[in-house]
């Protein structure tokens, strides 16, 4: 008991086998249905997320947020959906029609594919492959291709500029993100998602807080949310790579962005917050799903909070921050974690002492980083260019006559 | 069961297509694409030989990993060269890059 999902799937498999279908065919059918359920779940989550996000944004900005359609504005996302479904889907003149229309689908797929390996509970996981972490990085690259295709095929200079920015940002932030992901892999001795969850005693956010922080920052850049939303900086390049999209074409990019943020919450929960683990989750998978959703929401809330609090950075700041700060820091964290881990394994210490030493090592790196930043701050301040204050409106000079 | 020769013939076809691309294409970047096809064909062969040979001997996969690294290095340098040439001579057609042909 307590595992309704596997019970249903077993019952369904037996039903199909009872109809006399071949076993391989039954496996394929049940996998396809499972994939459809996971994908639909993701999209339904987005409907709720749009409301949640707008409510959070409203409250953080001292507004009420949506409150007209339905109680607490709960029907607002449905109103939005009806609006976007009924809009005409246009393809601009001179656009590359096939690429233009495939790109939103690819963007959506790149996010939905991640859910195939995320463990909802001990037994509820799409597929537990032994290269799960690398798989997540791999499907992320489809998102890059989708952005590039959308920007190029639109035949619009703003779209192309936006796509260039987006790809530069995504490709460069992938480097520290992958290095940061190596830390939980190293601590769990496995790239399988379920193994990583199972290895988290205590949670990896205690063993590797710096890696968690780097992962949070880089994955925010990967989605292109403020403060890293240069991809669609309205004041500079209209709407970036999806300038020319209307109706559901735009809708799919929008939904994939929302879902991506939620997915990153799920990844943070899985890698650093113990995934589905919690009291009683091993015997009662349904409880594991609940824990997983709560932890995912924590990650999601933090990202939304940061998004609503910080202004947009400049493109050179964005790239300099990545290459001159995050990548070296991630490398140092990885190397130190590996050395500490190996030496502690050789000495053979208790698990709590191991956790304490890991935490201390991370804090030490963080402290050293702050010291180094303070030491080079004067040099950076000298580079800053100060302009003469120039008033926007000048009173006209009094004339003689 | 898929026969080993299927994989090998598939790889041979991919290699031949890559060879055609390298020989027939004008644009230097397209030539690089042909080279990528050929490298991929070789990787298929390496992995197929690993799978159908002695599984304990992982050499096929290890070589494939090194081919990945070489391909990445080749593309990085190749494209840097193409862009550098484009900046100086305003062309990416391989035939027109003939400064050293004397």
């Amino acid at each position, binding site marked *: 008991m307590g595992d309704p999902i596997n019970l249903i799937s077993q019952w369904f498999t037996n039903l199909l086998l009872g109809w006399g279908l071949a076993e*391989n065919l039954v496996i394929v059918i049940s996998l396809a249905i499972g994939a459809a359920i996971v994908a639909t779940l993701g999209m339904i989550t987005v409907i709720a997320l749009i409301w949640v996000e707008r409510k959070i944004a409203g409250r953080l900005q001292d507004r009420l947020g949506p409150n007209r359609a339905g109680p607490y504005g709960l029907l607002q996302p449905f109103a939005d959906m009806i609006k976007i479904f009924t809009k005409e889907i246009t393809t601009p003149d001179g656009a590359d029609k096939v690429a233009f229309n495939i790109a939103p689908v690819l963007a959506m797929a790149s996010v939905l594919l991640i859910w195939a390996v995320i463990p909802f509970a001990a037994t509820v996981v799409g597929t537990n*492959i*032994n290269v799960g972490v690398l798989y997540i990085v*791999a499907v992320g690259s489809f998102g*890059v*291709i989708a952005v*590039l*295709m959308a920007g*190029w095929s639109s035949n619009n200079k703003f779209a*192309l500029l936006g796509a*260039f920015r987006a*790809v530069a940002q995504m*490709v460069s932030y992938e480097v520290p993100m992958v290095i940061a992901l190596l830390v939980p892999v190293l601590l769990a001795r496995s790239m399988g998602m379920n193994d990583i969850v199972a290895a988290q005693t205590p949670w990896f956010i205690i063993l590797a807080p710096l890696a968690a922080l780097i992962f949070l920052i880089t994955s925010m850049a990967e989605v292109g949310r403020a403060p890293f939303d240069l991809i669609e900086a309205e004041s500079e390049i209209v709407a970036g790579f999806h300038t020319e999209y209307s109706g559901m074409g735009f809708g799919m990019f929008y939904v994939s962005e929302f879902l991506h943020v939620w997915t990153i919450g799920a990844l943070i929960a899985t890698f650093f917050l113990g995934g589905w683990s919690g009291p009683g989750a091993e015997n009662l998978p349904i409880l594991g799903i609940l824990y997983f959703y709560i932890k995912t929401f924590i990650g999601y809330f933090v990202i939304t909070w940061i998004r609503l609090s910080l202004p947009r950075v400049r493109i050179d700041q964005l790239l300099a921050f990545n290459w001159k700060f995050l990548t070296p820091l991630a490398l140092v964290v990885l190397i130190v974690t590996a050395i500490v881990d190996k030496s502690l394994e050789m000495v053979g210490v208790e698990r709590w002492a191991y956790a304490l030493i890991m935490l201390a090592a991370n804090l030490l790196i963080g402290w050293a980083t702050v010291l180094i930043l303070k030491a080079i701050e004067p040099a950076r301040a000298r580079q800053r260019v100060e302009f003469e204050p120039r008033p926007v409106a000048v009173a006209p000079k009094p004339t003689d006559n | *069961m*898929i*026969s080993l*020769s*299927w994989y*090998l*013939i598939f790889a*041979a*076809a*991919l*290699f*031949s*297509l890559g060879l*055609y691309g390298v*020989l*027939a*294409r*004008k*644009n230097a*970047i397209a030539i690089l*694409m*042909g080279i*990528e*096809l050929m490298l*991929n064909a070789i990787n*298929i062969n390496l992995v*197929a030989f*690993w799978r159908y040979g002695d*599984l304990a001997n992982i050499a096929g*996969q*290890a070589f494939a*990993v*090194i081919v*990945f*690294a*070489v391909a*990445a290095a080749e*593309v*990085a340098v190749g*494209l840097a060269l*193409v*862009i*550098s040439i*484009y*900046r100086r001579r*305003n062309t*990416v057609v391989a035939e027109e890059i003939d400064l050293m042909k004397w």
Partner: protein
Amino acid sequence: MSDVEILFLIIAVVTLLAALFVVTTPNLVHAALWLILTLFGVAATFVLLNATFLAVVQVVVYIGAIAVLMIFAIMLTRRVMKDSGPQTNANWGWAALLGLTLFAGLTFVLINSGAADASLPALAADVDPLVQLGQELVSPNAYVIPFELASVLLLAAMIGAIAVAWKE
């Protein structure tokens, strides 16, 4: 024909068609997009061969890095691409002949080589090829020197690429 064989044939046909478009399409951005499909087909072939790690690395390295880099380079050199008409040089006939001859010759040799009789060894349940690959790549008795050389090569290529493409 078994299910797996049909799956292989579908993958092979799609991959080869995409590869054909890579080498024949006049529009280079389209060629790059077809290249992505080809590379994905090769990744699928790796999955059929039980090399999941290589399949995923193929997607990360080839699609995520190399193909994106190529599309970037094509767009940065876009003017020329638009100006010139046909994208093949004068020797394309000879090239096609050579390609076909090579393919025919290789197929002839392969069919007569006895590769068709090679048996498919069962994967051992207790040995993970991924773990084995990881250990051998850094083992002094196996491939640590090629592995390190590959990393040095990558570093050299990176520095070289920056030096070559540097704008004074």
